[in-house]
C-alpha cells in the first residue's frame, strides 16, 4: 500500500469512527441521564450491564471507535505541535491504540462479568 493511500484511508477511518462515536456518546449520555435519578450505585450499574450481551456489544463498539479515533487525532496534534518524525508519531499512535483497546476491553469485560 502506498503511503498516500494509507494516509487517506486513515483519515477516512478517523471520520467514520467519529460518526460512530457521536451515536455512542448520545446513547451513553442518555442512559446516564435516565439512570441517575437520585444517585447511582455500583449495584445498579452491575444490574444493568452485567451479563448483558447487547450492552457488551455496544460498549465493545464504543471502545473500538475510541481506539481508532483518538490515536489518529493525537498523531495529528503531535505532528503539528512537536518536531517528532512521521515514524515516531506512527508508533505512538499504534501504542495509544493498543493501550485504549486494553484498558477499554478490561472495563467492558469486567462489567459484563459482574452478571455472571
Amino acid at each position: 500500500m502506498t503511503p498516500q493511500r494509507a494516509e487517506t484511508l486513515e483519515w477516512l477511518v478517523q471520520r467514520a469512527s467519529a460518526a460512530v462515536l457521536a451515536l455512542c456518546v448520545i446513547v451513553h449520555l442518555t442512559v446516564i441521564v435516565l439512570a441517575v435519578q437520585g444517585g447511582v450505585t455500583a449495584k445498579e450499574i452491575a444490574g444493568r450491564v452485567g451479563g448483558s450481551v447487547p450492552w457488551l456489544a455496544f460498549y465493545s463498539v464504543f471502545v473500538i471507535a475510541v481506539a481508532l479515533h483518538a490515536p489518529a487525532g493525537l498523531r495529528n496534534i503531535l505532528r503539528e505541535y512537536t518536531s517528532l518524525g512521521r515514524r515516531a508519531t506512527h508508533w505512538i499512535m499504534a501504542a495509544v491504540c493498543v493501550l485504549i483497546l486494553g484498558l477499554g476491553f478490561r472495563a467492558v469485560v469486567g462489567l459484563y462479568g459482574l452478571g455472571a
Partner: protein
Amino acid sequence: MSNDTLTVEIWRGREEGEFQTFQVPRMASQTVLDIVTYVQRNLDPGLSYRFACRVGVCGSCAMTVNGKPRWTCRTHVDKVAGDGTLRIQPLKNLPVIRDLAVDMTEFFQKWTRAQAHFVPTATRGDDFAQVSPDDPRRKEASAGIECINCGVCYSACDTVAWLGDYLGPAALNRAWTLVNDERDGGQAARLKAIAGAGGCQSCHSHQSCFELCPKHLNPTAAIAGLKRATVKAALKGEI
C-alpha cells in the same frame, strides 16, 4: 492624530526588526498600497515592498494589514483603519526578504508539488474541446479558477503555520480546478501528490482562507472536494 493625517506603523527589517511610525496625509479613496507608496516616495526611499498592477489582477501586493492579510491595492484605508491607525507587516507564513517583501519561493514550489498544472491530452490535430458551462465539474472548476496567487490564504492559514509541509489552500484550490477539468490527463499523479503527507487531509477547515480571499473564492470547499476525491481513489486503489 488629526483627521487629515494617518499614523502608520510599518515593519522594518527581516524576521528580526521593529515597527517604524510615519504620519501620512489622508486622501479620498486612499488604499493601503497608496499609503505604502507615499512613505516610500516621500518619507523613506529605503522601504522595500512589492507591487505591479495596482488594480487587483497581479496578486503581488498582499501584506498583513492590522493583523489580517489583504491585497493592499484594493483595500481602502477607510475600511481597515477605523481608529485612525494602520499597522502594516509582511505576509505571515513566508520568509521575510526585507520590510514588507516576502520570499514566495516556497508558496510556488508547493503549487509544483501539488501537480497544480494542466496536463494536456489533445494534439494539434484535435478540435477544441467542447465543455458545457452547465456541466457540474465545469461549475466546480469555474468557482475556483480566478485565483491571482496573492498568498493571502496561505498567510491566513493556521495549518500552514503549524505544519511546515502542508501544501496550503492556494495550491490545493488550483489542484481541485484541475481535478474537475475533463481535458486534463494528470489526474492519478495529482491525486497522489495531494493525498499524502501535508496534503488535503491536513486541512482543519478553519476557513480563514475563505474569509479573507480577496477574490471571494472558497479554498476550504475545494479542499473538501479533494478529500472526497482522494477517498474514492484510495478505496479503488488508484493512489
